[in-house]
């Protein structure tokens, strides 16, 4: 009949094994959490990179349309369907690409701010549009 000491040893071995497994799993999870996964839509794909260029050109033209449209109105109708939807298109272009590069992430954040200003009828929306245009001009994708 086994002695109590053998049960203690077995129990201790089980505990040690569980600790080792938990430690390994924890380290693995930590590594996974701290490891920055590669951005999807790898920028080495020439099709995607050219898509970025086209999107940048279209966004620049959209912002010019938005700025010109708002600036020439004596009473800017910020909540009209045209400003809102033009801003939506800029936002859509940035949002679907923000995973590709930090540049698009920044643009997406600024577009969100611009869009919320337009939606709320904030007269500072025109400034937000102009700032976004300057960012595009300063650092073309």
């Amino acid at each position, binding site marked *: 009949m086994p002695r109590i000491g053998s049960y203690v040893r077995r129990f201790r071995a089980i505990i040690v094994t569980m600790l080792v497994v938990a430690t390994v799993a924890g380290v693995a999870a930590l590594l996974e959490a701290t490891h920055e996964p590669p*951005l999807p839509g790898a*920028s*080495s794909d*020439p*099709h995607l*990179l*050219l*898509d970025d*260029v*086209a*999107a940048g*050109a*279209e966004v*620049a*033209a*959209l912002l*010019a*349309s938005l*700025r*010109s*449209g708002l*600036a*020439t*109105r004596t009473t800017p*109708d910020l909540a*009209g*369907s*045209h400003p809102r*939807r*033009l801003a*939506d*298109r800029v936002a*859509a*272009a940035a*949002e*679907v*690409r923000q995973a590709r*590069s*930090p*540049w698009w992430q920044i643009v997406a954040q600024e577009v969100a701010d611009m869009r919320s200003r337009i939606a709320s009828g904030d007269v500072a929306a025109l400034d937000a549009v102009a700032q976004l*245009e300057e960012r595009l*001009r*300063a*650092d*073309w994708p």
Partner: protein
Amino acid sequence: VTRTRVRPPVALTRSLAALALAWAVSLPVLAAEVSSFRVVTADVDDAVVVQLPGRAPFLAEAVPGLPGFVLVEAGPMVVTLLLPATDAPDDPAAASTVLARLEIDLEGATYATLVVSSTTSSGAPPSRAPPLATYLLVEELDALPPGANASLQIALAGGEGGTVVDIDVRRVASDDRSPEATLAVTLAAGRAAPRAVLPAGPYELLVTTDGTTPSISPPLALDLRPGTAYTVVVSLPHDASGAVAAVARAVIDAVRPEPPQLATAPADATPHGAETAALHVVHLSPDAPPVDVLVDGRGAVRDLAFLSRSHTLFVPAGRHEVRVYPHRPPRRTVGEGARRAVALEPVVTVLNLAAGTSATVVLTGSYEPPPDEGGGGHLSLQVDPADATVTLAGPRGYRAVLRGDQFLVGLEPGPYRAEVARAGYVGATYELELLPQTTSLVSITLQEEQPDTPTTEVEERLERLDRPATWRGLELQPYADTGAPLPPPGHALVRVVHTAPTVTPLDVAVALLAAGGADDAEPLLERRFLAQGLGFPNPTPYTSVPAGDHALELWVAGTRTLLHELTRLPFLAGVTYIFFVSADPRTNEVWLVPVVEAVIPHLRGEAPR
């Protein structure tokens, strides 16, 4: 990719920007003498730095497969190729080891590619200055492949003089069938085959130098995307033993971009083959809800919002019906608070598309929704015999005496009583509850009086159905093209489409301003008219505009009244734009809605600011 950018002083930045813009706007003067130039390395292991007269050195390809063009003056030019510095491989300015120095002569208004290949293979002993072979490939690159096709240009860059190779491009079938030989060319060194148009899809490329043995093993896999132009460069370097092995690689020349929703494009949007046409749908009705589009009865686009452009739909050449429905049909209260969708008649157009063409269908006009809640109901009365008299009584003392079939609209909802009579027939009475926003169909057939049937039988049928509301005022305007044209070097292409039925005819112009700006103080260099008297629903021709910041102007036709303008609008070299004219439904104020239709890659920073 993490980009670290050092911000120079603002004043310096502005000065440099002004200089760049002045240079860009000087392009009209040089227009006939401008060429686009790039360098493609075929089999050179190291990156190659390109040094051109009067400009900073740059890497031939910052991204593999996407060498960007730069704008140069046509004529003789010395091109210096260098190896990047080993301690700063990403800094072109640090390059000092000269690989080759070439004198080339570029024609104006052409896209030129300098193909650089090595005469030794990657298996050869490393050398900091491998012997190179170069070949200048020149073309006009004036249009993208139409429909669901890609275009392919194959060039043989290196090899001994007199070397001839056979190149087969085979489409890889989706099933287990062997690849089909699609394109076969025989090329001598330093020659290119004419650009060929192929259905988009997976291909493999094989090169044979002795007529039997594939020299590339495994074959080069090509994934040709629709609306994309490629150049494949084949070179024949020697390996370490002196034997010749073929190397091939593909680069992108130009592309038709897809809108953001490409990732969710339905599966049936995939190309069908060579005999296809491309179709886009654009929603430009400001007050209409998001729409769904059916092509030949099949769902093609879902939830297309105002100012959006659909992904490219590829359809077989021929006749197609396009139907547009609201994405969410309006719902109306029916009866005791129940709500039900109101059926709307679709907006329909029929297109006849030839193979290789593309078309844009624009939903335009004003949305006229169904009547508001609480509106009247409709009553369709069918009587037999046709000349029977109908006496109709309803709420608020309504009473009408009618003869024959009737379709009554806008009646006050409530209880109605219809008495139908005809000499020689047994009269009938029918009571119904007329509901708002509902068409009640009542069909009453009287029975002839029979001496032996004192009890009159009346057949009555009651149907209630929604009378389809209409989108009166909405329409689909088709614009057909032979394909997306590409701009000449140093230029953008622009087209304006008048899609606002409430807006007056327009004179459309691009104002080319000094310094590329559109400030009032800047002198006008030229006002280039795209069209005069452009009325709905017509487009302007594609018009070439020098790259730079310009103003796009809409004038009331035949007057000096400027209706709308886009100031400081950046026209990028190598980009084809379409601008749709749209109007606010309440104020009729004009907006311009841009779409980028095609892009030729240019070197980063090459686009004029």
